[in-house]
């Protein structure tokens, strides 16, 4: 008896198992079918987003690791670091610091950006006291055949990376520029680190002597005595230091640099998330349309006893499988992209934030998990609504397959407008830790809300059109009016990608036009001279000679240096220039109101938007600046736009700077020529005086403008490519959805052919549907893109980079984009219609579901 019961139980289990397998086959059949077609595109889109995000993460990680490693090498075993402005601080501070009870070793350093004769980029040369540096930082110790070379004034010790970059070996000469003169330095060995970082080491006295840094230091590395309290020593030393000189652990300077580039890195990551968003929209479209198509099958399964919950899990599970495949492909592709990008452009992708040698991507398990989760999560989230739709459909009605539309929750439109409203509200919130997180959230909410608002908005617009008499048109409109949920699903990806492309196009055009406008304001002279970096400068005599060159009617000079305004940030650029306080707008691009300080008030300075944002200052505010080793009070006379210096800049009258600092050299000059003077002749005269064109670069405003705009275009070229890829994916998604829908409606077309509608009429009907759909998608994309562009311009860019810009819409390009999308969508619809109206459609009227 027991045996029979057990056998019956086994048969029962087997029957249940068999039924469950049948159900599973029925449901997963949809997945298998889907994976062959349209869902492949969704997988590609998810992979695209994950690949971009993961590649950016790998590159960022490599960049920050490289930077930290390089800075760690340069800092050696230092516990603290004293650092001052780029022009340095008085070396008399050194004995005071070195004598502190907590300091075991103090190693003075002079850092100079040295102009090279044969390279455009400068070389960082660190002047060190070899005996003291050896106790703290082996990377700054010269490795020479003859040890005495380390003390010779003509001996240069490049790092391995610098030697490779310069293409020099021991015994070779490197010609550098000091002032307007060439100096030949002998490569006498290598700096003692095996890293690829690009720098060179010299004897400290030689650097001070050769590069006009007599009596100045830029850094002192400190090693503390065993048991010394670092915080107490830091506090004690800080009290001894003059304004503008700071003492901090070496890691803080790495943090300041990485913080500086953080907004750029976060923006790149957001761009990748945007691609993932488009992918999620494609998954949503695929799953929604698939759920509608399989509605009768789901209804049958529900009738046969499949629970609502299990059906939801099945559909979400399908999304998860799509996401997992996309994430897997994306991670592998991302690694490849990162490897190629690091090899081709370097760790900062050419943005110029920091200089680092060859880096390789490191696949961290946590990053892999995060990006896999993002890909799968996006697909699962995108499948949630379709799963709800699949489970909600009443089995009896669904079995009749009479309802053609996607069932949207009743509150969809209200939720859509709520999301849009909250999104716009968030755009007015401030940044969090200097990241425009609310701005990003606002964009996500507006895009999601905008897509959810399409069904009701489009239905309202379509219902206003009077029913036309032409049958193809009237049927097309009737179909669109009756199926807003279905076409909204089809449009989701294309709307998202068009909106993002439009927003980026408006933002980039606004930025480019604002840059152009800015260049026109800041380049009023006929000729601009640049001597170079720290080592190359124009002395007072040079300035006199240049101003007196025949043909030069007026010469204005500028000293470019940098000072520490906030120790937690990179140095701010100080521009000491000839400027009239009563007409500052003639030289700098002022934004907002400007003032002339009242008599007796502190003298004026003008601050860039970045400084204004970071220090929370406006025109009329008081500020102090550390110049010449003391804090000097100033009045903010105005805020100006500066696209050239993201870290911020401050303009001060040159005469005042000279009086405060004693620094009378300059790096740059602007020349206004006499009416009959020739630019070429003046350039020749300058070249003759300086001993060659390379020593003082002379450029016209037109060539500087062209160069700037070319650099701008090159920088944004990758962005254009990414946007174009997103739009192509969105468009292909729409095309695939149109083709799939056309095939799914073949019985409808068969009936229409029976009752006497010509193939051409059906093709026209579908082409009109495609055109109207594309028009709705493009219109929605344009409106949302415009809204997002305002957030990008006024919130994201402002909070990330502190760049203000005015709005410029590229009407022609947008019109062209709209026309191309319309034509393509119409053509795709017409092409799929031709395939769908043949004899197969006629026979399809016999088909049961």
């Amino acid at each position, binding site marked *: 008896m027991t045996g029979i019961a057990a056998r019956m139980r086994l048969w029962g289990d087997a029957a249940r198992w068999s039924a469950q397998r049948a159900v599973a086959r029925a449901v997963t059949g949809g997945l298998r079918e889907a994976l062959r077609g349209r869902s492949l595109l969704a997988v590609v889109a998810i992979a695209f987003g994950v690949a971009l995000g993961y590649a950016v993460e790998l590159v960022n990680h490599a960049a920050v690791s490289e930077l930290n490693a390089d800075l760690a090498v340069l800092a050696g075993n230092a516990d603290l670091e004293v650092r001052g402005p780029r022009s340095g601080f008085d070396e008399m501070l050194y004995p005071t610091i070195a004598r502190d009870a907590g300091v075991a070793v103090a190693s003075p350093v002079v850092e100079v950006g040295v102009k090279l004769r044969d390279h455009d980029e400068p070389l960082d040369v660190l002047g060190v006291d070899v005996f003291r540096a050896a106790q703290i930082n082996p990377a700054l110790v010269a490795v020479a055949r003859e040890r005495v070379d380390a003390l010779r004034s003509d001996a240069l010790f490049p790092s391995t990376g610098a030697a490779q970059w310069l293409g020099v070996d021991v015994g070779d000469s490197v010609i550098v520029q000091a002032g307007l003169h060439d100096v030949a330095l002998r490569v006498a060995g290598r700096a003692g680190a095996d890293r690829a970082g690009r720098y060179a080491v010299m004897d400290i006295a030689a650097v001070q002597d050769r590069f006009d840094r007599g009596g100045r230091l830029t850094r002192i590395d400190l090693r503390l005595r065993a048991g010394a309290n670092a915080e107490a020593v830091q506090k004690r030393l800080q009290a001894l230091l003059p304004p503008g000189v700071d003492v901090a652990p070496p890691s803080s300077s790495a943090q300041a640099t990485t913080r500086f580039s953080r907004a750029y890195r976060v923006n790149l990551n957001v761009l990748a998330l945007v691609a993932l968003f488009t992918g999620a929209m494609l998954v949503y479209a695929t799953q929604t349309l698939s759920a509608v198509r399989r509605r009768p099958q789901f209804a049958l399964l529900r009738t046969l006893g499949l629970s609502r919950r299990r059906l939801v899990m099945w559909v979400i599970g399908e999304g998860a499988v799509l996401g997992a495949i996309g994430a897997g492909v994306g991670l592998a592709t991302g690694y490849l992209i990162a490897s190629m990008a690091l090899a081709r452009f370097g760790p900062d992708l050419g943005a110029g934030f920091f200089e680092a040698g060859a880096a390789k991507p490191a696949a961290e398990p946590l990053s892999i998990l995060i990006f896999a989760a993002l890909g799968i999560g996006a697909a699962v989230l995108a499948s949630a609504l379709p799963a709800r739709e699949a489970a909600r459909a009443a089995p009896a009605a669904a079995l009749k397959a*009479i309802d053609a539309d996607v069932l949207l929750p009743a509150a969809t439109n209200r939720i859509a407008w709520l999301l849009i409203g909250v999104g716009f509200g968030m755009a007015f919130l401030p940044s969090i830790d200097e990241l425009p997180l609310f701005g990003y959230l606002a964009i996500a909410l507006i895009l999601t809300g905008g897509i959810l608002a399409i069904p009701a908005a489009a239905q309202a617009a379509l219902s206003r059109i009077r029913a036309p008499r032409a049958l193809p048109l009237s049927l097309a409109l009737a179909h669109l009016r009756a199926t807003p949920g279905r076409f909204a699903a089809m449009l989701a990806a294309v709307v998202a990608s068009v909106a993002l492309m439009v927003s980026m196009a408006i933002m980039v055009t606004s930025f480019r036009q604002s840059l152009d406008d800015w260049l026109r304001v800041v380049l009023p002279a006929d000729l601009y001279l640049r001597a170079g970096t720290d080592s190359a400068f124009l002395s007072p005599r040079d300035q006199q000679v240049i101003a007196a060159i025949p043909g030069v009617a007026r010469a204005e000079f500028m000293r470019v240096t940098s000072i520490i305004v906030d120790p937690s940030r990179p140095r701010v650029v100080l521009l000491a220039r000839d400027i009239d306080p009563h007409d500052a707008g003639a030289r700098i691009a002022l934004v907002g109101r400007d003032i002339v300080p009242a008599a007796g008030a502190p003298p004026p300075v003008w601050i860039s938007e970045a400084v204004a944002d970071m220090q929370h200052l406006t025109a009329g505010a008081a500020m102090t600046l550390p110049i010449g080793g003391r804090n000097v009070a100033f009045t903010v006379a105005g805020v100006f736009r500066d696209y050239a210096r993201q870290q911020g800049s401050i303009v001060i009258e040159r005469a005042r700077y000279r009086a405060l600092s004693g620094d009378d050299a300059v790096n740059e000059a602007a020349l206004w020529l006499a009416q009959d003077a020739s630019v070429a002749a003046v350039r020749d005269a300058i070249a003759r005086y300086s001993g060659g064109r390379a020593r003082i670069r002379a450029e016209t405003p037109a060539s500087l403008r062209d160069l700037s705009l070319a650099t701008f275009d090159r920088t944004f070229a990758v962005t254009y490519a990414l946007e174009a890829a997103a739009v192509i994916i969105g468009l292909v998604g729409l095309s695939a959805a149109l083709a799939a829908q056309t095939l799914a409606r073949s019985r409808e077309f068969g*009936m229409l052919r*029976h*009752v*006497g509608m*010509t193939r051409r009429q059906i093709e026209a009907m579908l082409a009109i549907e495609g055109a109207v759909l594309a028009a709705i998608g493009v219109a929605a994309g344009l409106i949302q893109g415009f809204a997002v562009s305002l957030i990008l311009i006024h919130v994201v860019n402002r909070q990330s980079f502190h760049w203000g810009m005015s709005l410029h819409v590229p009407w022609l390009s947008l019109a062209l984009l709209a026309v191309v999308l319309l034509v393509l969508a119409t053509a795709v619809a017409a092409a799929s219609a031709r395939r769908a109206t043949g*004899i197969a459609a006629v026979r399809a009227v*016999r088909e049961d579901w």
Partner: protein
Amino acid sequence: MVELRDVAKAFDGSSPRQIFTGLSLRVEPGEYVAVVGASGVGKSTLLNTIAGLEAVDAGDVIVDGVDCAHLDDEARTTFRRDRMGFVFQAFHVLPYLSVAANVALPLALQGLHGEAADARVHAMLEAVGLGGREASAPRELSGGELQRVAIARALVHRPSLVLADEPTGNLDPQTARQIVALLRETVKASGAAAVLATHSRAVAASADRVYRLAKDGLHPTSAADIE
């Protein structure tokens, strides 16, 4: 009037199949003819052949004196639009149009709009028992009601020939009986000829003549002989 003379039809493809040969049939105006036969024997293909939707391999298909085989696709479509009406097993009512708009489709295709069309639609819906349901959506209708909409659509433009393919195949017996009666009544009232493909004894019993379709053509039979 419909006349088929020695018509032959085969399907090409990976497994070519001869559907029928030597098929002849003549249906006079007002006649109501049923074609029966097992599933897959080619009943639907025969209707498609008469409608000019499938080309014949041999023989002539004459409808109202016109040999459809000699017309191009455009002309065949126009001919079908003006002279024929169709009733399908699965109704094929467009879910995104109202009941009235579905019925008005053939009129719209003929360019008839406005009050005249509305009056014809209204009258036709009254005739099939759906008066007052003009604005209803198809999803609000039962299967029998949907087939009534299809019958109205098949007759609203006053065709000379109605082709019905398993018109009760998706209906319960009681509704099927009502639809059979309605179809015959409305077709007869319109004066059109009708050819019905069915395997239903009840549908066949409503016909004036019944034929069994076989590979070698049509053979007269009676509803009583249907198993």
